[in-house]
């Protein structure tokens, strides 16, 4: 149809009908207002981009473009500046600009809501616009985040935008404030993403956010020194530094040592699987653990010392007020001190353990008489056929 008209109209934002002097500023506006992730504040480039980012990075569904007019909230439409705007909307907009209401007579297929919304571009109409501020059912945009943005007069808009335009420059200033986008960890990104990001169709969004928490201090691929500590500058894993399960660490505590069994091993069939050298094996195991602990812990402390000194200042209140002693939380790896403390204890382990395996010695596993059918060869015979 009369898609010519191409009059020298100013660039305008499809999502909120606002006009701009320059398409560059329009794009900045869109990134800041409509394509910004409400969780990590990352600015995406298009509505679909935002939707995919939220889905992949935060597992949240975004079904409406934030801060958009009710009839312009479609997140599927790919709009960048003035590109991608549905032709009929372009036409409608031009009609609004030129002839006032005339255009709407001929284009009656427009939803009523749309007509209501259009005035917003001429003069901010507070009543019509506010619905656009509550965008998604998931409530990703707390209204408070955009306090009355739509109601602002054009002067304020520009005022608001100024800082946004500087955003790229601002990031480094607050690397810790926005963990997800912190730059420090980026260097490790390539290595990391190759290995782990298994399904990132939109690498732009997923990739940019992935590395931040995962940027490891040491080369991620080389897990030569097993530690749980290393993360990016902006985050920390709440786990003892030693890369051993919480259960194993806990089980070392004297409180949890298994009780010595009163019933001594009853000599009976010695299942071949159970080697009498239990204590030896265990000693080796713990020796290994101890070995990498000492190396690991030393390394961990170095790595973390710097980060922590810095972090400690910014540290927020302990997560578990009831449990945590105030000073504990200051050092990041809560367990560094304890682990160090445990090192000397390790030998004990090896000393103590051998006392116990006695019960595991030949056939000690099962006290006689517990099996109704009797033990001995019978047990063996009974089971073998099961898999045959």
């Amino acid at each position: 149809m009369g898609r010519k008209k191409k009059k020298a109209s100013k660039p305008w934002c499809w999502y909120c009908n606002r006009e701009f002097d320059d398409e560059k500023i329009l794009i900045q506006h869109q990134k800041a207002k409509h394509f910004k992730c409400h969780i990590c504040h990352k600015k995406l480039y298009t509505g679909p981009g935002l939707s995919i980012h939220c889905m992949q990075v935060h597992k949240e569904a975004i079904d409406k473009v934030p801060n958009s007019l009710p009839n312009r909230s479609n997140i599927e439409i790919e709009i960048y500046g003035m590109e991608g705007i549905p032709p009929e909307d372009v036409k409608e907009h031009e009609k609004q600009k030129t002839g006032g209401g005339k255009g709407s007579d001929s284009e009656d297929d427009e939803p009523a809501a749309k007509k209501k919304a259009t005035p917003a571009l001429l003069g901010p109409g507070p009543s019509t616009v506010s619905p656009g501020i509550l965008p998604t059912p998931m409530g990703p945009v707390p209204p408070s985040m955009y306090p009355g943005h739509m109601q602002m007069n054009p002067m304020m808009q520009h005022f608001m935008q100024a800082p946004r335009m500087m955003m790229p420059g601002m990031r480094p200033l607050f690397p810790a404030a926005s963990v997800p986008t912190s730059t420090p960890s980026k260097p490790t990104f390539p290595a990391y993403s190759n290995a782990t990001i298994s399904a990132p169709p939109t690498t732009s969004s997923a990739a940019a956010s992935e590395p931040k928490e995962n940027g490891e201090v040491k080369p991620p691929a080389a897990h030569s020194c097993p530690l749980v500590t290393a993360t990016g500058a902006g985050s920390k894993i709440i786990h003892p530094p030693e890369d051993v399960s919480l259960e194993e660490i806990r089980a070392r505590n004297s409180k949890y040592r298994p009780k010595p069994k009163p019933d001594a091993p009853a000599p009976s069939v010695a299942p071949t699987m159970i080697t009498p050298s239990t204590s030896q094996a265990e000693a080796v195991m713990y020796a290994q653990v101890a070995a990498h602990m000492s190396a690991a812990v030393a390394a961990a402390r170095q790595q973390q010392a710097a980060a922590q000194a810095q972090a400690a200042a910014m540290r927020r209140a302990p997560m578990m007020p009831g449990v945590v002693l105030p000073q504990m939380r200051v050092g990041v790896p809560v367990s560094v001190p304890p682990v160090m403390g445990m090192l000397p204890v390790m030998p004990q382990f090896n000393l103590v353990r051998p006392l116990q395996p006695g019960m595991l010695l030949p056939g000690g596993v099962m006290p006689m008489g517990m099996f109704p059918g009797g033990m001995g060869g019978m047990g063996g015979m009974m089971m073998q056929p099961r898999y045959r």
Partner: protein
Amino acid sequence: MFPQLSAGGGNPNKDVEVVSPPDDTVAALEFSPASVPQTFLVAGSWDSKVRCWEVEASGKTVPKAEQSMDGPVLDVAWHDDGTKVFMASTDKTVKCWDLASNQTMQVAAHDASVKTCHWVKAPNYTCLMTASWDKTLKFWDTRSAAAIMSLALSERCYCAAVDYPMAAVGSADRGVALYSLEGKPAEVKRVESPLKYQHRCVAIFRDKKTKQPTGFALGSVEGRVAIQYVSPTNPKDNFTFKCHRSQGSGGYQDIFAVNDVAFHPAHGTLATVGSDGSFSFWDKDARTKLKSSELLDQPLTKCAFNHSGQIFAYAVGYDWSKGHENYNSAKKNYIFLRPCFEDLKPRST
């Protein structure tokens, strides 16, 4: 003053509290199978006890019985007929608890603490699968002292899951070994871990259509869960997602361990519980979070669904993630029950 404590901070999600909870952290939590008409909940804990409650339809819980092991209990499993419970302990043994007679009997042993136990019910055999820090995976006929089969693991077992005919075992070297239990147990393959940090929990999920086990969810200490298909039709089917992380006011992010992961038996959606003290429900197919809970003031250590998927149980207690010095033995441990069928419905789109 004190009642306020337990009402507010202890149970922000307003769930049903199981009466007479364990005296120390819960390390294992399982509901009775469909074969028994009533619903029983069994919890193994660090106080070396295993407790059994009956859960009534009203949500009322009645303590039924308890048994002791010689060391902390790391896992429990129900026999498929619902009459017996297996208890794996750091005392290197697994015992079978006959609920009717309240007798226990040793059925398995390892050279080190037994981390997991699972009852395997195959058409042609039944057995108990146990995995241990002694780096072995063993299969036991419960009537014999000797294992029917022992398979070597690459490292200490940290987590395991069984959904016949599949078994998955996660180990300390971040390995995942998959087993086929058909005919007889056999290792199928070792999967390269999609995660860069220590494995902590694993659960098997089924294909939506065939209802056959088709993949697993693996949780790590780095607040992340991997969804991994055994044979993905598209490499992009496998993915990882972040969870159980909290944003501090200073912009510092705390990353917590995923302590347990479980799939909803009817919907195929999943739940995770973390050291951060929250649980979350997820739809892996829509790749969305369905719900996240309020934060509790202690870590969540375990979770379980009952067989029909109506009840979600989660255990609250200290998990050692902040070291022994943050252990406060005066702090009460809890198990909470919550109706969950609606919350876990997959996203409809």
